């Protein structure tokens, strides 16, 4: 692995250079950006040489907007009268245009890997993964809502990144972790990092090892039906208003709805982020709804993240970014839910 020492000015030049030949995105700072056709709010296009500042904690929008954008065209078709291909579904051209996401945090980087478990065979997610380069920044400071270490991550971790920037004296250390990262850095005249800097970073990582699986192990040892029947869901379901905000800002909520959309005889089948907080999500055509009550829907979200997903794939479906803690209008805190679940016998 190559490690370079990079100054802030070099970093800004690099981002400017990349943005000449590729789409480069960076966290939006300050006023919230509107959603754009090719990405969601919380991010903006990096253009020109404006200095890159990465806000403390995760960007306002999660990185899933780049891998699992909405709407995403799954197929197209014509409904024009007389068209011999009328009603024939066609695959859209595979997206290959390279994009670079700069400034994501280790929590979001890890979400890319976690979502890749259910999406491993999904052609659209895989195509987006292939064309995206992740240039992340490890965290020196955390927000009060950050809890990546509880979920098996670490603020200094580089999993899921192609290039990881970490604070060093008078600048950054850039670890080039993948061939995609190397390709992005090719041709740049950069100074290799001094051994003392590399050792310093390794020492900091030793101090905060993270990747603790103690909570995961305890949760996996709990009986699913006992967790499901626990009395804690009643007050939680009462206070949750099922607004779905947590599911949309969550980097690891990945469920989707599929809809058809026709404009002037040209149709497309698209997928959108959905939310298990909504009654329509599980409503049968007969009117029967397996999760017709608010409590059931609230429970489903937390159980999915903390029990169902680990049963299926191993890790929690949560990276501890804390966005849902920040944005919940009724102050539901997944850390408290988790602590309560851990007391269920």
């Amino acid at each position: 692995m190559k490690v370079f020492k990079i100054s802030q000015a070099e970093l800004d030049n690099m981002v400017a250079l990349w943005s000449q030949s590729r789409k480069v995105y960076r966290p939006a700072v300050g006023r919230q950006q509107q959603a754009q056709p090719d990405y969601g709010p919380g991010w903006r296009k990096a253009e020109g040489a404006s200095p890159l500042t990465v806000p403390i904690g995760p960007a306002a929008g999660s990185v899933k907007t780049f891998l699992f954008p909405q709407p995403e065209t799954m197929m197209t078709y014509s409904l024009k009268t007389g068209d011999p291909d009328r009603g024939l579904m066609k695959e859209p051209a595979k997206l290959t245009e390279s994009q670079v996401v700069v400034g994501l945090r280790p929590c979001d980087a890890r979400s890319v890997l976690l979502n890749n478990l259910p999406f491993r065979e999904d052609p659209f997610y895989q195509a987006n993964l292939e064309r995206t380069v992740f240039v992340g920044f490890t965290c020196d400071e955390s927000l009060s809502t950050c809890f990546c270490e509880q979920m098996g991550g670490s603020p200094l971790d580089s999993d899921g990144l192609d290039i990881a920037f970490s604070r060093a004296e008078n600048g950054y250390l850039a670890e080039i972790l993948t061939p995609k990262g190397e390709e992005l850095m090719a041709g740049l005249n950069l100074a290799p990092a001094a051994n003392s800097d590399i050792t310093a970073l390794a020492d900091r990582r030793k101090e905060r090892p993270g990747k603790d699986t103690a909570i995961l192990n305890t949760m996996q040892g709990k009986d699913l039906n006992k967790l499901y029947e626990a009395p804690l869901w009643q007050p939680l379901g009462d206070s949750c208003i099922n607004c779905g905000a947590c599911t949309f800002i969550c980097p690891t909520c990945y469920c989707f709805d599929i809809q058809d959309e026709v404009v002037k005889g040209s149709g497309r089948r698209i997928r959108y982020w959905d939310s298990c907080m909504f009654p329509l999500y599980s409503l049968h055509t007969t009117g029967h709804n397996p999760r017709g009550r608010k409590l059931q829907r609230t429970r489903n979200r937390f159980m999915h993240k903390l029990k169902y997903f680990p049963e299926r794939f191993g890790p929690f479906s949560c990276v501890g970014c804390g966005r849902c803690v920040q944005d919940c209008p009724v102050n539901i805190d997944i850390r408290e839910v988790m602590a309560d679940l851990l007391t269920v016998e």
Partner: protein
Amino acid sequence: MISYLPYPVRIDDITVETEDGNLKSFKLVFENEQQKKAWRHVPGQFAMLSLAGQGEIPIGIASSPTEDGHLLFTVNRAGKVTTALHQMKTGERMGVRGPLGNGFPLATDMKGKNIVIIAGGFAVTTLRATLIYLLEHRADYGKITFIYGARTPGMLLYQNELKQWAARGDLDLHVTIDREAPGWDGLVGFVPTIAGQVAPSPENSVALICGPPIMIKFTMPPLEKIGWTDDQVYLSLENRMKCGEGVCCHCNVGPTLVCKDGPVFTRTQVRQLPVEY
């Protein structure tokens, strides 16, 4: 890699199955010869019926893989896509994506056993596929019992086939309607009652039960009374689905995905799940 792209098919034939006109069977033929040849399904699996501009719906496959060259789906008119489908005509194009789900383990766990099929209402569709498959492979199975009930004689599906099956000597057929009706000289009574009267022996047997939840609930006690256990009973769950490939999360019952892990489960498996179906 998953392909969400449906195969183009043409509607070859439409049969109005029931007297209320709400159930129609659609015989579909593939447009593409290679896709037709590549299609393999087992009874109990389902597929997504795709209507451009309307959407997709998961429907159990009513045809047996032994009926070569076409697919059959019997569809109840209920929502947006099914209503549009009911308005379609022979010769028109639509799409099929699948086959999806696990299906009944007919060629594995059930081989050599006595098979008891219990169906209520239009849940009989995948059991039609099953019975036709079993009769094609008759020597591989023991006694076959088929119990099927509908509200009225006019609500029975597949009436021509019921007549053919009744004429065969190698299966035990019990067709019942809920109440006496003019011109009906067959069995009268709810499916659970008939199942209790037929009392199929649990020895070396499996039961495949599809019907409204209330029917399944009341069918179990008479079977349990004569020694049937939960792991001999196979059920098929339904939940709202979108992708059908175990990705979109919609059909989850606890950690289980109906589309991928099911729709067929033993009653033992179902009882371990939260009641979210």
